[in-house]
């Protein structure tokens, strides 16, 4: 660690400077090699080097917001992973899902989690939901160079806004592009290779004020539709018992549905599709 460079053994000045409350800004001085956007890449496309994570959907509900992701990662026509987890809590009240280059995405997501926690510990208060969304936008922008060489990461961010006046509008979703963003979405959004199909499914079925249970079912249905038409999106794997990851963010904080709960929902969706494959 950087502390080893000071002959007196004390923590270097960059640790004790009053400076910033942002962990990424601190890293850019203390350990820039840990920031994803700071690495020089050789010329040429790196797109086929690493697995790609695929479809994520987020839906607002009356009590907050839910986010679900399928479990597949692909490399070209190969399935790189059947059980990757792409939806994670960003902090106590927000969720982040990653699509794009899996390795860079996971690194970015970990960094974002530390960023939010770090600010909270240094300042003694949480960032606002918009503040969190903007921080994530800045981090994606930092990855633009790599994105242009094929290592793009596009997350989906959703959270429960503690300062919302109307509790029914406290669940909020932000989407991004490779140059940053953020774009606030109304009601629902999907990202990743299967997003066209998931968005089309959600467009027909979404309405404002869904309960968390209804929104969860809708999300799993949308992922099923995405997997139906997109080879890079994995459907519920009944034989291996691998089901989508579903997380909620409400006034009680974030919560991940247990495997049994998601299994029950996925089984219900699959058996309904046995009767009517189009949903």
């Amino acid at each position, binding site marked *: 660690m950087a*502390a080893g460079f000071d002959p007196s053994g004390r923590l270097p000045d960059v640790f004790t400077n009053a400076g910033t409350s942002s962990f990424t800004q601190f890293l850019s001085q203390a350990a820039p090699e*840990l920031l994803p956007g700071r690495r020089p890449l050789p010329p040429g496309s790196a797109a086929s080097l690493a697995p790609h994570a695929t479809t994520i959907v987020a839906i607002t509900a009356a009590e907050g917001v839910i986010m679900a992701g399928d479990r597949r990662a692909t490399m070209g026509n190969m399935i790189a992973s059947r059980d990757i987890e792409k939806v994670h809590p960003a902090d106590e009240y927000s969720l982040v899902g990653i699509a794009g280059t899996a390795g860079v995405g996971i690194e970015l997501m970990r960094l974002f989690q530390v960023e939010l926690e770090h600010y909270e*510990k240094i300042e003694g208060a949480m960032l606002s939901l918009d503040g969190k969304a903007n921080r994530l936008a800045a981090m994606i922008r930092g990855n633009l160079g790599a994105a242009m060489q094929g290592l793009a990461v596009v997350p989906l961010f959703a959270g429960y806004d503690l300062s919302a006046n109307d509790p029914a509008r406290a669940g909020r979703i932000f989407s991004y592009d490779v140059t940053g963003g953020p774009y606030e979405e109304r009601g629902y959004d999907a990202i990743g290779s299967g997003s066209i199909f998931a968005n089309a499914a959600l467009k027909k079925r979404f309405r404002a004020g869904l309960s968390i249970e209804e929104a969860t079912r809708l999300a799993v249905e949308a992922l099923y539709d995405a997997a139906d038409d997109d080879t890079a999106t994995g459907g519920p794997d009944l034989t291996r018992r691998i089901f989508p990851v579903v997380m909620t963010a409400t006034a009680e904080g974030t919560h991940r549905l247990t495997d049994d709960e998601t299994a029950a929902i996925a089984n219900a969706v699959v058996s309904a599709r046995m009767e009517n494959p189009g949903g």
Partner: protein
Amino acid sequence: MAMQFYTNIDQIMRDRSELARKGISRGRSAVALTYTGGVLFVAENLSSSLHKISEIYDRIGFAAVGRYNEFENLRRAGVRMADLNGLSYDRRDVTGLALANAYAQTLGAIFSDQQKPFEVEICVAEVGATPADDQIYRLAYDGSVNDEPGFMAMGGQAEAIANVLKGAHKSDMSLADAVKLAVKALSSVGGEGGAARTIAANQLEVAILDRARRGRTFRRLTGKVLTDLLNGNGAAATSSSPAKPADTEAADTAADSKDTPKPPAKGPDKPTSSAGSADLE
């Protein structure tokens, strides 16, 4: 340039120590002690926003007395170091000992190299799986470290306060008993003619590292939860078996009732939702 006169190093160090001790003894004190459900910090603090006690990492807490700007500087450095190590390695690899060592080196270097030493005393505590695994380190202004046996006091008249703790501290105390003991110890000094005094709940800063929680264990105890604990009303909630963190639930309710955003209520087995400790484990 001013003429440099020879001064005995002994004399310089003595002067610096005296300055630091004087500064520290002017301030109010703080204590840290283990109890059955975790580690308790109690500090006398008139401000509700300028904290003397804070969270460093999942299972590590920080308490300090002395000059605010100086220990705040150290606290930030600690949070940065812990977060950097947690990101580079894993959350489980961030330890209280590493942090205590870094603080010791830093305080020691400042004491010997700088004109003015830091007028602070700090405590780094890490909560373990059992009270015997808890670690409480006390760091003085000159960088000396002490591994304290289950309890520590720092600040003005720390020795007298520590003596009160020494007589009554047991590692299997309930939270209510631990809070009462801590407050009794803090208020045993500073009254008229060295007598005991009373400290109101709003002059106390109280926080715990909750052994039963996964992920981030640090919680502040404020408002009704704290007054209940002090008045003995919390005994029913807190004297239950160590495995059941009833006091935690109570603390959550209080946190929710305040306007400021606080971590939400959580059961003991619910993983933390921060920094991927839960789902990346």
